């Protein structure tokens, strides 16, 4: 009876975790406010002071639009690799995936592989062309030989949709997490995150955003490694001892180390695989990072470093989850009312934090809490910068002013846009406080994979793409991905409260991505306008630049 109950509870818990941690964004479920944690706050204040110092230094180096959007193109491959890894290792990776490993075992490991597998493909097929063709935003590439106004408007619109949904998920997650870790009010936490993000981005631009991300990535790697080493020392660093003990106490038993029900449905599995793989390749804040390095050589190196760090960190997280099964799961201190197998204090996502406390006391708990907060802050800053550049570079400078805006005016607009996005993010975060926002990350990845990725890859690889084709593919991808998410269980049932979802899967990519490709190709082929002929003609020069980097935007000299 007890066993059955535990099993049911872990199933319910993991069901919520799957939807929460399904994507790299952070939608941490509702949490209860904890007593104020002074160690954590102290360490966080240290982090904030350090990053503000960097922002002060970065501000003196942020004079041109190139400095603001891409740090003048002067970031090295190793630095950019750390920053990309930082963008990718969110609080959900640390908290959500540790918790998933704790409840589901190897299923979580399969998930991590799906998160990882996009990186080699981005390197092989995209990294060098992105660097050779892009300047500030990925719309520079899609609009390279197409109608600037129309294509940039479309690309900026889908960028902003991705950024906004991702931001909401981050903000709500941040509020919940901070309430939990630091004992601050939800609203106070949001305003704090919003204000710090505005300071980093408006004053320090990409230089500050990158360095905040690098510092945070190092803290995360250090924190995770420390926790896992201390935890493994309790098992004599033996995988056999660790797994044998985990199997003996876990409700899944032997099944802990075998694939379970998580990806049993092949449609969901493939759709998720596609969505994660190509969604990553369509996220504006990730794509933007490829423009911050000097040349294609450094762009390739960044992926090498980033993927190595991400792979390492996922394996650390997997071991943390396994160790937590014994260290946290068998200690009544971490359960509500002291009942082992009952509800975990603070909710399922707190497993990693409890593990830190169990192996390293309040100091390590405080450190890891500060890291989690820093993570959210850094990711939010990167998102805001990507959104601001879509507004100021694509819409204001290229569409409205038709390239006639002075650099000073564009820079001013980018700062106004950042402040605007910060305010919008705080307001949306407040509005969505009580909602489960997991679907917003699904939507962000779905739109990125369906609206951004197909048009981007076609514009780089296919001569035949025309303005009309790009618009058809982009808008159809945007609307179909959005519609499928709205009709899926996560919105139709969980938000609107209908009994039955009209679209039976949670990930739209398997359907909306081919639809976007198909419409872009069909419409382009049917396009016999004079503009279309000129656009196809222009592919030749673009192709040479994409392959050789001749004429590519180079690093600004300082």
């Amino acid at each position, binding site marked *: 009876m007890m066993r059955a109950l535990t099993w049911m509870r872990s199933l319910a818990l993991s069901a919520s975790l799957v939807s929460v941690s399904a994507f790299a964004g952070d939608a941490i479920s509702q949490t209860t406010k904890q007593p104020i944690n002074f160690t954590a706050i102290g360490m966080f204040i240290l982090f904030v002071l350090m990053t503000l110092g960097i922002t002060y230094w970065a501000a003196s180096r942020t004079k041109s639009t190139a400095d603001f959007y891409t740090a003048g193109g002067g970031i090295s491959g190793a630095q950019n690799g750390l920053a990309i890894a930082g963008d990718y290792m969110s609080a959900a990776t640390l908290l959500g995936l540790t918790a998933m490993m704790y409840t589901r075992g*190897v299923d979580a*490991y399969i998930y991590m592989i799906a998160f990882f597998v996009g990186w080699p493909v981005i390197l092989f097929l995209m990294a060098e062309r992105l660097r050779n063709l892009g300047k500030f935003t990925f719309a520079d590439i899609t609009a390279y030989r197409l109608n600037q106004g129309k294509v940039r408007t479309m690309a900026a619109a889908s960028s902003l949709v991705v950024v906004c949904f991702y931001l909401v998920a981050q903000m709500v997650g941040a509020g919940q997490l901070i309430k939990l870790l630091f004992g601050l009010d939800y609203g106070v936490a949001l305003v704090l995150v919003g204000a710090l993000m505005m300071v980093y981005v408006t004053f320090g631009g990409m230089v500050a955003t990158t360095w905040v991300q690098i510092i945070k990535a190092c803290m995360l790697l250090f924190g995770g490694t420390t926790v896992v080493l201390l935890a493994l020392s309790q098992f004599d660093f033996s*995988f056999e001892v660790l*797994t044998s003990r985990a199997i003996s106490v876990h409700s899944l038993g032997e099944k802990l180390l075998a694939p379970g029900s998580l*990806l*049993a449905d092949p449609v969901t*599995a493939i759709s998720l695989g596609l969505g994660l793989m190509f969604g990553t390749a369509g996220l504006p804040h990730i794509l933007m990072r490829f423009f911050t390095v000097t040349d294609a050589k450094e762009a390739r190196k960044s992926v*090498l470093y980033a993927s190595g760090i991400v792979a390492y960190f996922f394996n650390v997280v997997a071991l943390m989850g396994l160790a937590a099964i014994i260290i946290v799961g068998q200690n009544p201190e971490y359960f509500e009312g002291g009942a082992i197998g009952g509800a975990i204090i603070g909710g399922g996502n707190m497993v990693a934090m409890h593990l830190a406390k169990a192996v390293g006391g309040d100091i390590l708990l405080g450190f890891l809490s500060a890291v989690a907060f820093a993570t959210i802050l850094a990711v939010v800053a990167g998102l805001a910068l990507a959104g601001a550049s879509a507004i100021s570079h694509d819409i204001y400078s290229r569409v409205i002013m038709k390239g006639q805006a002075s650099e000073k005016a564009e820079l001013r607009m980018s700062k106004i846009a950042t402040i605007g996005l910060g305010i919008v993010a705080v307001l949306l975060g407040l509005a969505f406080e009580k909602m489960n926002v997991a679907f917003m990350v699904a939507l962000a990845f779905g739109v990125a994979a369906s609206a951004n990725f197909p048009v981007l890859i076609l514009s780089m690889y296919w001569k035949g793409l025309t303005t009309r084709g790009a618009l058809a593919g982009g808008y159809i991808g945007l609307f179909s991905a959005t519609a499928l998410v709205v009709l899926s269980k996560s919105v139709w049932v969980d938000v609107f409260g209908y009994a039955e979802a009209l679209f039976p899967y949670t990930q739209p990519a398997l359907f909306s991505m081919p639809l976007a490709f198909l419409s872009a190709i069909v419409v382009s082929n049917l396009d016999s306008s004079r503009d279309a002929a000129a656009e196809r003609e222009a592919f030749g020069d673009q192709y*040479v630049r994409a392959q050789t980097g001749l004429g590519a935007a180079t690093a600004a000299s300082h």
Partner: protein
Amino acid sequence: MSSTAYAHIRNNPQFARLVSTRGRFAWFLSAIVFVVFFSFVMAVAFAPDFLAQRPFAGSNVTIGILAGLFQFVVFWVLTLVYVRRANGEFDDLNKAIIDAASREGK
């Protein structure tokens, strides 16, 4: 950048060689990643019992865990292989092509 430089490069047989060799290499490596990863996904969906097997007597390590670790390691090694060749051999060829075009332009 002038269109003549681009036209010059397009007509350079070395450019055709760079593009086809590098392109084939990139697609070949991508194909490995796609095939390995989606075979693994299919195994998760259709043959979970196979992944649950323990190949070593007296060890808890399952084929599923080995397959996961294998992918992390091999995919990263593939990125290393690509970066080394692209940043070495291909970039040397690339530089030669650009130099030839700029000499021609003078």
